[in-house]
């Protein structure tokens, strides 16, 4: 239990913050993150032996958040409506990052956050978002273009 406590203390805040930035919904971020840590605790013997248990928590938390968002599809939020339409966005240069992120389609925002804040590899982001790795890469590419981020060769593609 002490090992789990240490794990919780080390990672809970980071996971909530990443999901909050990705989802723009504090309540959902906290619910999903607590659910993920609870599931980690129930399976701690297995999770603790993973190469990257924190990555497991990120993936589970994001999948839980997606599950909850899917459950709301009968009355989608404005953000989800935007996601469904998948409009191309032009994020004005010079906007504060929070506003620029908020202007991204939700899946672009989630991909950017998981990659560049949570530092998840593309394969795990694909698991978290329920899509193919190639889709993650193209989503990241579009997101970085919208955020006007300049890329060096091979940057952003682990």
């Amino acid at each position: 239990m002490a090992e789990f406590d240490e794990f919780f203390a080390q990672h809970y805040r980071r996971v909530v913050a990443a999901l909050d930035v990705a989802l723009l919904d504090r309540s959902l971020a906290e619910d999903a993150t607590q659910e993920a840590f609870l599931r980690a605790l129930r399976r701690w013997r297995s999770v603790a032996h993973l190469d990257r248990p924190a990555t497991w928590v990120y993936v589970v938390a994001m999948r839980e958040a997606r599950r909850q968002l899917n459950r709301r599809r009968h009355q989608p939020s404005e953000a989800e409506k935007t996601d469904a339409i998948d409009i191309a966005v032009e994020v004005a240069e010079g906007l504060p990052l929070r506003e620029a992120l908020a202007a991204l389609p939700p899946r672009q925002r989630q991909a950017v956050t998981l990659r560049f804040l949570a530092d998840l590899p593309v394969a795990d982001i694909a698991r978290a978002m329920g899509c193919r790795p190639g889709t993650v890469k193209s989503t990241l590419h579009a997101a970085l273009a919208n955020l006007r981020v300049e890329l060096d060769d091979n940057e952003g593609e682990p």
Partner: protein
Amino acid sequence: MRLAELHNELRELADGVPVDSASARRRVMQRHRAHQRRLRLSVAAGAVVLLVAALTVNRRDGDGADRVIAGPATTLAVRPSVDGRMIPATGRDGTTVRLPITLPDGRRYELRYPDSIDLAALGVRIYTTVDWPLRGAGTGPLLCCSREFTLTYATIAELYPGAIPLASYRGADGAPVLLFHAAQRTSTPSPYTTADYLVFQLGPWVAEVWDNVPASANVEPLDEQQRGTWASQLRAHIDPDGFVVLQPEAPLHLGDPKAVQILIGDTYSVGPYVMLSQFFCGQPESDSEVRRTFVSGAESGVAWCDPAYGFHVSAAGSTAFTKAIADAFEIRELPAR
């Protein structure tokens, strides 16, 4: 902006998010302890259910006919289960296992897989939807009353042991439908962890219909009369394979068939799982019929869209498990009963 600057700004943004870790840890530990209590109670409740089932099995018709059930019916809890998932019966063709499965709308399929994996033992859980489209006074649809919910193989007493319901409504055939708050449940309810739930005992399955969700969820709660309508109009029967078939009566009706999800195993565990859904095929980002394998951490996985019936199949687990699914998993349609 350079990528390094994006990294730094994201971290600064995240550092500014106020997080109460201490309260969160208390909630996680409380829920964990409640889960452990529930496990202990489940063992006791399971023993009682098995005893009652054994005492009543001689009184059942035995003709394989469907039985209309809408209310507490603990005597039907005769199939084994794991963590709220039913372990279904299977048949065999040589080294191929046949697992018949019935969806909540009555569609029937047979899953076929090699006997090198014990898929059935992972247990089955079902997600489905029931719609209640209402129209306002000429202003288009009101989206208050349609619901998606989970069907868990358990009893209300197992999920809410000792809990006093917030309200009780007369269900179909007079059986009570109980309103609980999520906090009264001993394990995590889905989809909302802080909502109220109308809880139906449909034979050995429990349906939990969410209501009164947090304001941030942006959905409308049911009113008292609408809860009563849900309670009285959601009927179901249990088919001979042990699956629940919903028979909602007007104004309720079955939701989009594509919204049904079948989960075998637990997507959150480290162990293996297979998930079937028709919701994820036919979109620009969807998988094709090619069985795409992937590796993620300690797990490998495979996913594809079944060309015959449009099911998205996704599975993950050990390399051997994933290979068995990728090489030989099949879906076949069965005739409706």
